[in-house]
């Protein structure tokens, strides 16, 4: 792998121009780059695994992926969470084929080795008769994900034992992370039932969009916006919502609505009247008390990406993680989330409206998937792969606004996209593996 990087390095640098203003089409299709991503992005970064509430009791497990590595995330008897490769150490067959459930142990269906809920090898079939010595449990247990962090009810993991603490990995995005996930004492509840679907396209398109793309919204989703706006409310609330975007050189990006006067109408259209009222009367004031007013009652996060693949659409009540399946396909696992304190009618509005808009069969999701699919289709062509894509929007001098932590631009800037791809490139071309 290191040789491959050395060989690729001259090419790597050109993939994203130094100022970030242009991008090689290869970043979306190249198999070699994809293999590098698995090693240097997905085996390095903190990745979202599961809402902690999905695995409340000892033995509860959720099966997911870190990059393309299958992992089991399991609640331990002491309340902590462990994650390990869903791979037997004898010949590598799966320890569990279910998406979720409860288990006392995991038995490989190939030769019957069993592991406890922390992935520790417990029994080896025929060990006392057919092995000269007992199999070394320390050496031959399932491969543990060395780093686990539970932050505001969200479970993250990293394969990099030397990774910075999760909070530190947020860098200057920490206040914005809190403005999304630490708004109340109880945090967010995930409504049981994970949406899972596949998209034919490269995962970075979805990630970049969540970090930085307020630009696509009124074109891609024109039909959906018109459809959800009740008759008599006129045109969809388009240019009336001036928005800003925070971006971090670490690749995180968060979009905020600055038009708080219009937000109640927007919430009512997107989610429902109870939610709109509850947000004004309870949710935002409660968040302001904890976090101050700037990112709660004066502005509100509306979309965001925690690099590389964890996205949140706060005003649409959905979190999701993008799981790469080769350069040309990814899987989305999404949950509907509501503040723990929300009353039943708000939970119900969130559950129904999120499925309609942003579930696997949500009307907004269809619009995005069709675009990503088309990008992949064209990039099967040789000439198409030699092209570069323009990322120059808003590349003038940085407008520094001291009001906000970190760098904040209008949402008519692609600074967040430029930073996302530069960060990705930095990880790919780092000196040591």
């Amino acid at each position, binding site marked *: 792998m290191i040789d491959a990087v050395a060989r690729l390095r001259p090419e790597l640098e050109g993939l994203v121009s130094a100022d970030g203003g242009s991008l090689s089409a290869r970043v979306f299709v190249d198999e070699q780059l994809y293999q590098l991503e698995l090693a240097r992005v997905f085996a390095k970064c903190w990745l979202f695994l599961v809402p902690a509430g999905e695995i409340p009791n000892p033995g509860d497990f959720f099966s997911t992926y870190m990059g393309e590595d299958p992992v089991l995330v399991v609640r331990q008897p002491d309340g902590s969470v462990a994650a390990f490769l869903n791979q037997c150490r004898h010949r590598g067959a799966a320890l569990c084929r*279910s998406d979720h459930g409860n288990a006392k142990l995991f038995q490989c269906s190939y030769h019957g080795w069993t592991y406890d809920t922390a992935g520790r090898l417990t029994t080896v079939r025929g060990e006392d008769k057919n092995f000269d010595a007992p199999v070394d449990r320390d050496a031959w247990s399932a491969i543990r994900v060395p780093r686990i962090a539970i932050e505001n009810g969200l479970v993250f993991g990293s394969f990099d034992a030397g990774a910075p603490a999760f909070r530190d990995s947020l860098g200057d995005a920490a206040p914005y992370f809190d403005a999304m996930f630490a708004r109340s004492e109880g945090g967010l509840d995930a409504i049981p039932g994970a949406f899972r679907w596949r998209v034919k396209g490269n995962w970075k398109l979805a990630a970049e969009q969540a970090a930085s793309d307020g630009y696509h919204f009124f074109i891609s989703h024109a039909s959906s916006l018109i459809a959800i706006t009740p008759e008599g409310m006129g045109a969809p609330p388009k240019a009336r919502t001036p928005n800003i975007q925070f971006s971090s050189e670490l690749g995180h990006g968060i979009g905020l609505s600055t038009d708080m006067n219009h937000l109640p109408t927007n919430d009512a259209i997107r989610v429902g009247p109870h939610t709109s009222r509850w947000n004004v009367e309870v949710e935002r004031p409660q968040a302001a008390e904890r976090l101050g007013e700037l990112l709660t009652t004066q502005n509100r996060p509306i979309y965001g990406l925690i690099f590389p693949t964890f996205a949140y659409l706060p005003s649409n009540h959905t979190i999701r993680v993008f799981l790469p399946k080769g350069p040309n396909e990814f899987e989305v696992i999404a949950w509907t989330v509501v503040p723990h304190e929300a009353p039943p009618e708000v939970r119900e509005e969130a559950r129904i409206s999120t499925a309609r808009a942003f579930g696997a069969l949500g009307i907004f999701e269809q619009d995005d998937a069709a675009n990503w699919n088309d990008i992949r289709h064209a990039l099967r062509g040789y000439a198409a792969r030699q092209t570069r894509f323009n990322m120059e929007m808003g590349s003038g001098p940085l407008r520094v606004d001291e009001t906000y932590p970190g760098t904040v631009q209008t949402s008519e800037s692609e600074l967040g996209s430029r930073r996302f791809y530069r960060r990705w490139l930095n990880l790919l071309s780092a000196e040591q593996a």
Partner: protein
Amino acid sequence: MSGVNPELQLAVERWLYDEAELLDDKRFDDWLERLADDIAYLVPIRSNRPPRDRTAQPAEQSSHIEDDKSGLRVRVKRLNTGLAWAEDPPTKTRHLITNVRIDPSEMPNELQVKSNFFIYIARPNVEQASFAGERHDVLRVLENESRFELARRTVVLDQTILATNTLSLFF
């Protein structure tokens, strides 16, 4: 097997086939006309769980679709805007409806109708998808036994991870 008379069986099957034709011909406004005003249209999320898993199903669960009539109208309204890019050009769909099983309901004017479906979907550039599953319908009998309205539909999809989501179809 209850004693469903052959005429009723034929009438229900014909109703389902006509409905499939409306959907494949994309006459969605006409399709909405066939739905009861109090329709509940549900596509639950399914997942793979261990065979002996005893974890209780939670009372509150997300569904792929959980729409009443106004929700279904939103989906149709989107398709009627002419701006739904995922449907430009329109997806070709073919609903195959089979294994129609009718049972009386507790309500005297309602029938419980199960059917199997296979839906083939073709998009530009030889892109194809298909869905198989079962529909659990409640048909409400109007006036005489040849006219019905759909009062409830629960769609049991056989896919747990949906292989495609560029879908503007109804099951």
